[in-house]
């Protein structure tokens, strides 16, 4: 399997407080990789260090064999990024934001087709701020895919989407994965992670607490469901389930 993302010994502190500590990971081509952890565990900083938009204190990152710091412009021709909170101009319309994004790439995708694929057809003339939270979230996935990337980073992928919209996004991502897209995501929804991710890495206080498949996470914990295993590894419920026979009650 070709290696698409590799990080070694990644560390980052803010004002002497370590946020990411000695993080290492490797993602292969066509894999869906989930970076998980409680709020404040260092997910966003890790992603920003991987992408090179933040400079790590130590460690190396290669994405598609490129150094994101030194080869930023070449790298982002082939890497798409969806940001956690929609960052867009106040009065911009959907079509304008799509055109602004498409014009930056060498061979952009047809953004109208992408909008349709994510259920946003007919919304081209709407202002971005007038979209519902779920529509905006999907628009930012569209923007991440506009440059025809080989890898996408999706931060808090389906936060704010209703059940149906989440399922639709999952299905589309499955299709993209079959086309060979490598997906790096962070998520708060363990059902989503179970449905999509080939492998996960769980962060706890900026350090790797677990790395492997969803099944391995359950096996390596005293829990019987992935959600419990996640809570156990991430330190949010360090006691683990009360009894051995617990069947995945949700908190």
């Amino acid at each position, binding site marked *: 399997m070709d290696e698409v993302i590799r990080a070694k010994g990644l560390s980052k502190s803010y004002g002497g407080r370590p946020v990411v500590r000695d993080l290492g990971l490797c993602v292969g081509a066509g894999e869906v990789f989930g970076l998980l952890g409680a709020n404040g565990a260092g997910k966003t900083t890790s992603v920003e260090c991987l992408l090179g938009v933040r400079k790590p204190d130590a460690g190396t990152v290669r994405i598609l064999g490129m150094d994101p710091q030194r080869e930023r*412009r070449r790298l982002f021709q082939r890497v798409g990024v969806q940001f956690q909170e929609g960052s867009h101009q106040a009065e911009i319309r959907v079509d304008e934001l799509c*055109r602004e994004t498409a*014009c930056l790439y060498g061979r952009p995708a047809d953004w109208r087709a992408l909008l349709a694929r994510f259920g946003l057809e007919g919304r081209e003339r709407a202002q971005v701020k007038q979209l519902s939270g779920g529509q905006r979230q999907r628009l930012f996935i569209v923007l991440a895919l506009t440059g025809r990337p080989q890898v996408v980073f999706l931060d808090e992928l389906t936060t704010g989407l209703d059940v149906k919209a989440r399922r639709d996004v999952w299905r589309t991502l499955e299709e993209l994965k079959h086309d060979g897209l490598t997906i790096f995501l962070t998520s708060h929804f363990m059902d989503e992670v179970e449905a999509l991710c080939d492998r996960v890495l769980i962060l706890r206080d900026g350090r790797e607490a677990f790395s492997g498949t969803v099944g391995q996470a359950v096996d390596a914990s005293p829990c019987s469901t992935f959600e419990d295993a996640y809570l156990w590894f991430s330190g949010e419920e360090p006691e683990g389930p009360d009894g051995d026979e617990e069947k995945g009650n949700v908190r």
Partner: protein
Amino acid sequence: MSRFKGFGTLFGIELKLNVRDMNMVVFAIAMPLVVLAVLGIVYDTDPAFEGAGYSFVEQSFGAVASIAICAAGAMGLPLAVADYRERKVFKRMKATPASPALILGVSLAIYALYAAVSLALLWAVATLAFGVQMRGSWPAFLGGWLLTLAGMLSIGLVVGGLARTSKQASIIASILYFPMLVFSGATLPFEIMPPAVQQVAGVMPLSQGIQLMKSAFLGAPPDVAAVPLAVLAAVAVACTAVAVRFFRWE
């Protein structure tokens, strides 16, 4: 060349967004025309003073042309820059093949365009309605105009680039914009102010720009331009250096 890929598309869309916002249309396009019209109606083709070889409106033309430059540099640009940082537009650009500098360059071009459009409209109205003629040299006047624009936009970059929040940027912009607009001679003719106010107001970069444009427009001897030229060039160089060194993209 690929560094500027998308410049044209971005320019078109960002200009549309800016016009939709209307602030600059009012403060950089409409307001200078209103000021010119008021001066023209009050003074018509009267000479600037008894025996002057030029009219009062001609004497004021450089000042009126500086209103759009002031709006662009002290208000429009710093607010746009602070807004794009706060909305993380710069940060998003960082994760594309373009760079945040591309969209910043687009903003600079848009504010320069406002100033240029304002100048062209002012000239058209001034010549057609109030018989204004160029008494000095166009190249010198346009050179002074460009230098004033560069100086004011560089101040805007510093304010927008260093302010922590949009709120802070808008406070600083107001502190810069309104005094310069009123006391530098851009709206109230410098000549009618008391000497004490003239001395204090003369320090402002926009006053220097207006002196420069005025002397070029009226064909004053070149040595009059020496001080404003030096002050404006120093402001432009210093502010650009500070902006480049300390600009905060996020």
